[in-house]
């Protein structure tokens, strides 16, 4: 089977075919014979020419798919080559308006910018308190505060959009 797979924003073209004992894999044109075994739920053991890899699959609360190899974690998106989402996924990172979302429920302690302000990548925008900790949410890019969608003291839920940077 053939997939376009986005790993940390970079596309890889992957073909996998299961043979009698091994899988034949072609990644970005590179051929490999792989001994693959599911050892436990969401845990895949790969042997490639003697080298062993354990891959743990995880879906986060936000629904992102991650592959964890040893101590490294990779955000992965498995794409139907015909779909268009891939390009977005790769391009999306920096261009266009960015929503600042609450990753979890909490309370807005302070808002550090106003609509229309110019902000730079990494600049603090909103201070939120959750799990007894205050956390500053920073701007993902250089740009302008298009909208503030919350107020100091208000309580927000996971996924709520708090501001939009364009």
């Amino acid at each position, binding site marked *: 089977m053939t997939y376009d797979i986005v790993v940390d924003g970079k596309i890889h073209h*992957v073909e996998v075919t299961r043979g009698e004992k091994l899988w034949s894999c072609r*990644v970005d044109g590179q051929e490999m014979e*792989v001994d693959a075994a599911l050892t436990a739920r969401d845990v*895949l053991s790969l042997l490639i020419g003697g080298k062993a*890899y354990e891959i743990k699959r*995880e879906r986060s609360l936000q629904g992102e798919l991650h592959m*964890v190899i040893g101590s*490294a*974690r990779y955000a992965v998106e498995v794409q139907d080559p015909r779909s268009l989402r891939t390009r977005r996924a790769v391009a999306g990172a920096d261009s266009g308006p960015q929503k600042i979302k609450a990753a979890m429920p909490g309370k807005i302690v302070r808002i550090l910018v106003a609509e229309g302000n110019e902000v730079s990548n990494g600049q603090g925008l909103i201070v939120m308190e959750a799990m007894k900790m205050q956390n500053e949410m920073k701007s993902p890019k250089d740009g302008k505060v298009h909208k503030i969608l919350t107020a100091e003291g208000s309580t927000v839920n996971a996924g709520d959009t708090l501001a939009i940077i364009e």
Partner: protein
Amino acid sequence: MFKRILIANRGEIAVRIIRACRELGIESVAVFSDVDRKALHVRKADYAYHIGPATASESYLNIDKILEAARRSGAEAIHPGYGFLSENANFARACRDAGIKFIGPSPESMEMMGSKTRARQNMKRAGVPFVPGSERGLELDDMERLAEQVGYPVMLKAAAGGGGKGMRLVSSPAELHSAYENARSEAQRSFGDNEVYIEKFIANPRHVEMQIFGDEQGNVVYLGERECSVQRRHQKVLEESPSPIVDEDMRRRMGEIAVRVGKAAGYYNAGTVEFLVDRERNFYFLEMNTRLQVEHPVTEFVTGLDLVHLQFHVATGQPLPFKQEDIQLRGHAIECRIYAEDPDNNYFPSPGKITRLISPSGPGIRRDSGMYEGWSVPIEYDPLLAKLVGYGEDREQAINRLLRALYEYFVGGIKTNTSLFRRILKDPDFRAGNIDTGFLDRLLTKPNNETDPRRPIIAAMGAAIFASAEAQATLPGTTVAVSTNGKAAPPPPISGWKRMAREEAVRER
């Protein structure tokens, strides 16, 4: 020994105390809020009582409800753990009035030490060295005067404080006013007491603390120091014992002063005396924590003692079973505090359901955990999930064992800060013992390049094999819908896998 003990806490520390109870044949009584019915400490206890809603003030911080649970359960003693009511003298007194033994120091010692300014006065009399600053809470104008006197930068601190709450660094007179107001309001919010005092700021000090232990006969011993300089936002992240800069002589001097502090406070049970250490290895009294510390396991590893067993023992009124000269320190131990927070997202808390948990074990590894696979981390409480502690013949072996254990540790479904510890433990400065309270902030500004060019390709292949094996159960050619199903646990292995398994089975004959 007590027949039944109530643990007025939750999470890993409640589990750790329940374990000590079971080891000593003591029945354990857990308490839980609405969101903790399925918490691990409830699973492990012999008895469990519901004490109210998630909000701590209506459950774990509610003295009446806890004493009521103690009465209903027939507990003879209460262990407060750390945090919550552990340093609340009123609670200790309420226990005493209710005829229930509070496992900790007397309310009088707690009060003396609870207010930093009063502690300071008493300690000064005992000849304990101090960082220059105010003896007590100050009004703004007095504070401005004193700040000029000791010289900027200065640190504002909440008298009732702890754990960095209500602390502000002020590097110039211009900043003093707003910092003062912020510190007061945060102190009020956090401790219901807005008293704030001032201290000369020591640049990049080390934070070293001494474990002491006293009995009700007045004996006090010290059990070695802990280096706690690795902090983020004034919160300890990693602790170790011994400290890389403390030699036998310094340990003896620091220990004897800590014992003097304890005796001056008429202290008994477990306590910790915190010191600031400057570049010249001068140390200054910082504060005393009148409770069992989060990081007590590193001391247990190097002394071979069980501090919770010891707390129970002295709480029954018996004297310490050993003298200072019997303490044998051996090896090196380091603790990592595993938090539910996202290192890739500014260490933002990451509660939620733990869909997968693979835990390390093996030589030199101790794991004190409050989580389990399938449990949901509630948003209402401190995000500390577990403590991973490594022991070694020496510091290097302890570091290497921890790195090995962190490599094995996998918490799926939520984010944890395990990658932070890999960075710390691999850092050349840390490995050389060159750490101070500014170490971690400096480290986090460095780029993190833990990368192997081959790995992303393996990740892609793995994702494809997962997808392919599962796709064959559904329509050929379709792909795994990543966006859907995110919140639920991943679907069970289906026929694609089953077929694969069968093939393997055949092959294995």
